[in-house]
């Protein structure tokens, strides 16, 4: 009797230890898990602003490739006219800033999705399963880069996929393929011999809005600090008609 009780207590002890280990091994707080893709790679893009001429070939080729509705874009080159304050006589400079989804390592769009339609692959690419997406727009709000939008045709969330359908068969994203100045360089940052890895080693690259701790994977070469975050400049002209609906003659 005495022995069996001792054995019983021993078993209880083992069981408790086992349970504690099981709990400890499991992550304490559940969160989105990466799935799909190959963890051998980590796809990323380098954007050499010194080479970008703002021709919008990337914008056009992206639209040809991915067919977003007219007026909606997965990538765009924002352009800024910058007065040269130090040299008043000098003509203004132009600053070209290609924008697209940053495929962040800590993407704020994913944990908000209420149906896990948007997810990150093992290779870092952030995708949307638009057959699950309910079009709630929560990820659009959460993205600090305004990279997402609700596609007017599919009525679901949409954004740059790094042209995953091309990358997965060994092709380059459409925007990279068409970039005339070679400003966009796409590749695997886990491969030390890739062109992008070499660029990241060579240059002091910057990312957009580093203070958001999203760890973006679009790396800019030749970035000016004034354009890293929300640009405090004069807004663009959105309307070419006045309040009465008449077309403005001169912009």
């Amino acid at each position, binding site marked *: 009797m005495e022995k069996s009780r001792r054995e019983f207590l021993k078993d209880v002890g083992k069981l408790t230890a086992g349970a504690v280990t099981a709990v400890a091994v499991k992550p304490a707080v559940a969160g989105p898990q990466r799935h799909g893709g190959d963890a051998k790679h980590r796809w990323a893009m380098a954007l050499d602003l010194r080479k970008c001429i703002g021709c919008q070939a990337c914008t056009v080729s992206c639209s040809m490739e991915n067919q977003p509705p007219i007026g909606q874009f997965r990538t765009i080159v924002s352009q800024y006219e910058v007065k040269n304050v130090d040299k008043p006589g000098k003509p203004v400079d132009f600053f070209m800033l290609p924008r697209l989804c940053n495929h962040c390592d800590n993407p704020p769009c994913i944990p908000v999705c209420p149906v896990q339609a948007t997810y990150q692959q093992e290779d870092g690419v952030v995708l949307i399963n638009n057959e699950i997406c309910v079009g709630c727009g929560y990820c659009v709000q959460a993205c600090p880069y*305004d990279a997402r939008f609700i596609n007017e045709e599919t009525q679901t969330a949409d954004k740059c996929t790094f042209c995953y359908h091309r990358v997965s068969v060994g092709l380059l994203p459409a925007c990279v393929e068409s970039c005339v100045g070679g400003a966009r360089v796409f590749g695997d940052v886990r491969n030390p011999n890739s062109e992008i890895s070499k660029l990241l080693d060579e240059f002091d690259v910057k990312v957009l809005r580093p203070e958001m701790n999203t760890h973006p994977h679009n790396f800019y070469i030749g970035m000016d600090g004034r354009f890293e975050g929300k640009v405090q*400049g004069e807004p663009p002209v959105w309307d070419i008609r006045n309040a009465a609906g008449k077309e403005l003659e001169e912009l």
Partner: protein
Amino acid sequence: MNPNIIETINITRQAAWLPWAVQYFFLIGISVTAVFLTLPAFLGGNAKYEKIGRLALLTAVSCAIAAMIALVADLHQPGRFWHFYTHFTSWSWMSRGAFLLPFFLVLVVIYAWLVYRADLGRLARQPGTMLAPLYKALALGDKPERWMVRPVAFLTLLSACSIALYTGMEVMVVKARPLWHTPFLPWMYLFTGLVGATGVCLLLNRVIGGNDRGVERGLNRFLLIALGLLMVNGVLWLASGLSGVSAPAHRALLSMSGNVQWLTVAVWAGLSAIVLFVIAWLKPEGTGVITGLIAVHSAWMFRWTVFINGQMLPKMGSGLYPYHFPVGPEGLLGIIGTFGLWVLIIAALTAFLPWDGRVEASGAASH
């Protein structure tokens, strides 16, 4: 704004949360806080507040039903709403809300039913009532006990708190929008909700509640408390931004500074609150319609400003995104439609249910 930088080419992003979201947050905020207004009567058992309690209960039920419709309509794929229930996502506040919300709706309906139950029984016994069999079935028994009201009122209170928490957190966690990413916002929702719910009760008191002066005075007095809380919270929010204590509030102010539209909204909101406070304080009787309308308008305007104007602030670009108010279902029609639906629900509920508990007087002959 830096005059040395001019943005020449960029794209706009359209608002992903439509006016339907404004309607949802408006109606659910009022429903949740109307539950609080029912508590003195039905949880505290204070008969003095019975009339206010019944007006508030009607408000809570009607707004909760209308809110659900607005919420589903805000999805761009409303037919896929069931995905919320097949893809539960414990870490997303919206997913949590999808599970908390039906509980709230069911509890509010049960709560109202328990309050009306005895009267439903009396209605069934009234001579010449065509719907007598229906009322009898609804009353579920001849001698309904009222003791169940109190525990259910308490459960509904807990559920209402869960809705206030989820709706507040859902917006507050959006770090990318400095206007939303602040702990002041959930409290703003709660207090503007209280103001709005009191306003709806004041209007209902005038339209269907027999314009009871005692109720009007009580609600106007309550409005003072709600407004006081709202103004303190609003001033603290503003101060935290101006002083730079709160970085998001500071960034939010920075992105609006120098913009006439935002300045107008701020002055408008401030003036509305002050005018409302002064009327409710100096003349709490005979002003129910005015204070009610201003209160409802304030609660609605706050949500419109936070959601629609908030989405016009670009996260990367300069200035503001243009917003063209659509007249179709995604804009004006949706707003009118939601309010129409709410009026219809109120009409249906008050036509068939003994919501004001006045059955005994008219049906006295049967006893």
